[in-house]
């Protein structure tokens, strides 16, 4: 049995607006499961989920492990540190070994863009979920962010706990993504997700980290603008997504120092008050406090950071269920 490309989740571009919203709604239902005392359902009993994390990760990996276990699946993790890839085994041979062991799903994180696409050509009978490939995409992050946003927005508006249509809360939004967009897979997935929903996306940061190409139709279709001035970019937005600034980028001369970056682009309470006082703030984590985001913002009432983590497990449960049902797109 050859697995249809429709059962993989490699990119947000694999989804239609409808299936995206359906996933968010499924995630919301699963949050209810996680609110119970016994947080387990038997749906995926007997299925095997392999987490192939060839790039280090703690939060995403644990999130996927817990998600599989909550659904009663068997979860096995192979991480870059302890696997034979360190001995020089290629991704290709790892894939073949996987295929021979016959898991139902492989969750792949890899340092190179397109690694899941490559793996998909090698795995005939296994569904594949992209948990982050290089700078390219991190679809489950974009999905959990939407779930989180949906929950907060409609709680703000309606006070009702569950059951409101995600399509209406998540549309007509202005979203600013601030920071190292160039190297961010979270940003790319978020751009595609928000464009699917018809939202306005602003990409904000210094020109070395937010090249103008992002605003080209040939890059991502949608209402996307690039801003190299923080306050102009944050003007009257509903959501601010902060991206981590990596120290490693200093070697590539993308900015002269973290201090200079933060002096001009750090998301502080004062700046938010001036530009969009009602904005919510998100961060995929881990945050560099004082660099891309001020501590007071990260810990304050407009921050969704803790909720994002909670939504992560529920959303990944929804993705596993959908991928194994063969109905991803």
């Amino acid at each position, binding site marked *: 049995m050859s697995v249809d490309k429709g059962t993989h989740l490699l990119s947000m571009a694999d989804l239609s607006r409808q299936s995206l919203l359906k996933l968010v709604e499924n995630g919301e239902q699963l949050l209810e499961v996680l609110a119970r005392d016994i947080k387990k359902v038997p749906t995926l009993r007997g299925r095997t989920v392999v987490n192939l994390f060839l790039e280090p990760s703690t939060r995403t990996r644990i999130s996927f492990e817990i998600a599989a276990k909550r659904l009663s699946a068997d979860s096995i993790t192979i991480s870059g540190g302890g696997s034979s890839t360190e001995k020089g085994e*290629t*991704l*290709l041979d790892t894939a073949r070994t996987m295929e021979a062991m016959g898991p139902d799903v492989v969750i792949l994180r*890899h340092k*190179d*863009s*397109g*690694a899941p*696409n*490559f793996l998909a050509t090698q795995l005939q009978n296994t569904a594949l979920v992209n948990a982050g*490939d*290089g*700078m*390219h*995409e991190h679809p489950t992050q974009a999905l959990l962010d939407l779930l989180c946003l949906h929950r907060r927005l409609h709680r703000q508006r309606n006070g009702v706990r569950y059951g409101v249509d995600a399509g209406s809360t998540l549309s007509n939004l202005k979203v600013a993504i601030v920071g190292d967009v*160039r190297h961010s*897979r979270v940003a*790319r997935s978020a751009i595609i997700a928000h464009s699917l929903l018809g939202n306005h996306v602003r990409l904000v940061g210094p020109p070395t980290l937010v*090249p103008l*190409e*992002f605003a*080209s*139709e*040939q*890059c*991502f279709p949608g209402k996307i603008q690039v801003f190299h001035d923080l306050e102009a970019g944050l003007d009257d937005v509903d959501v601010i997504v902060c991206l981590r600034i990596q120290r490693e980028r200093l070697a590539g001369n993308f900015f002269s120092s973290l201090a200079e970056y933060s002096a001009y682009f750090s998301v502080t309470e004062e700046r938010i008050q001036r530009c969009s006082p009602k904005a919510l703030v998100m961060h995929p984590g881990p945050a560099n406090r004082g660099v891309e985001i001020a501590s007071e913002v990260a810990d304050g009432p407009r921050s969704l950071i803790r909720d994002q983590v909670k939504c992560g497990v529920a959303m990944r449960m929804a993705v596993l269920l959908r991928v194994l049902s063969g109905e991803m797109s």
Partner: protein
Amino acid sequence: MKRIITGAEIIDPSQGLAEQRDLIIEDGVVSDILPCGHGAAPLPQPLVEGAEIIDATGLWLVPGLVDIHVHLREPGFEWQETINSGGASALAGGFTSICCMPDTVPAVDSKTVVAFIKQQAEATKGVRIFPVGSLTKGQRGSEMSPLAELASSGCVAFADEPEPVRDLSLLRRALEWTRHLNRPFFAHLEAKDLTRGGCMNESPVSTRLGLVGLPKAAETLMVSRYIELSALTGAMIHLCQVSCARSVELITRAKEEGINITAEVSAHHLSLTENDVGDYCTDYKVYPPLRTSEDVEVLRQALADGIIDVIASDHSPCDSDTKAVTFAEAARGIIGLETTLPVILDLVASSKLSISKAVTALTQNPAKICNLPIGSLRRGSPADITIIDPHKEWQVDLGAIRSKGKNTPWIGRKMMGQAVYTLIGGEPGLRAFQPPRD
């Protein structure tokens, strides 16, 4: 042995010839090209006496094709290709002469290595193989190779492929020598400081795919550099693998000023774009990278206008281990000896290039750049001949590729047009069809 090839459409731009004629070969050279003998006016009996007659009616006959940019990988990388397998690949692709690049191990930086290559080439008894010497010792860019020794032992040109020399003062003095030795210098167009980590053309497409880009400036900066160096030294500089419109602009202006430069383009740069990378398929990873459709249009026009002189494949066999990996990790390179001709014929068939310009770029011009006594069918020329069936339908089949490298984006593609017969020095090389005898 005397051979007469009858009935072919002979296309020889060096003589302005494009007509159905009969061609006579004697003692390994073209002895005559005559109006076709048939019906009431057959070829005279004494002429035909003792000759092998090859009926090539309906086929095209051109001077033996020449590819001046080929990587044969031997010595040093014999698992990727050998002089033998590369020669077989060239033959299968209709080429009768190739120039092999010096990026071997050891590099082609001494007469011993040149002698080795020539010895290996003799053993294949087929395609003519002309070695290109390395400009610097070991391709390390710090000391000049013994250029005069390399020239006299048989190198037809010098190159810094694919490691561009950084030291401009070394480059200047070396070019003064190459000029003195009357050999062209093949320049690799890559400013390496701008291409670290790069995988594909830098553009909205690479941004979307999350791949580090290769900016066109990495190529055009080098084009400008070599134009100035050629002006400074008078050296003949041949620009390898031009891929973008801006390079064409710079070359056009330089040629108008009379600067001694020439340029080449590959079949893949004339037909594929960055969008073909699609799903991160490593068969499309190459340097220079595939660019945009605007660049492709400009390159085709430049070839038609003579701004680009030569079609050359940059045949770069890679073993499958280096391609069956992620895009960032994959080796760069596309094989080209067996696919250049059909891809070019396809452009001719769809009126994007004239057959005469295509043949010029594959015969007369490359021969002229390397000062080789081939590329023409004038009386007295060595009988290096390629016979093409322009209507032959075939498919690029993994199992049938003669090169050890299978890294081509055209696996499985249906092609129309193929070389079916070649002669080198009047002796048969490729024989992919048995023509009926008269």
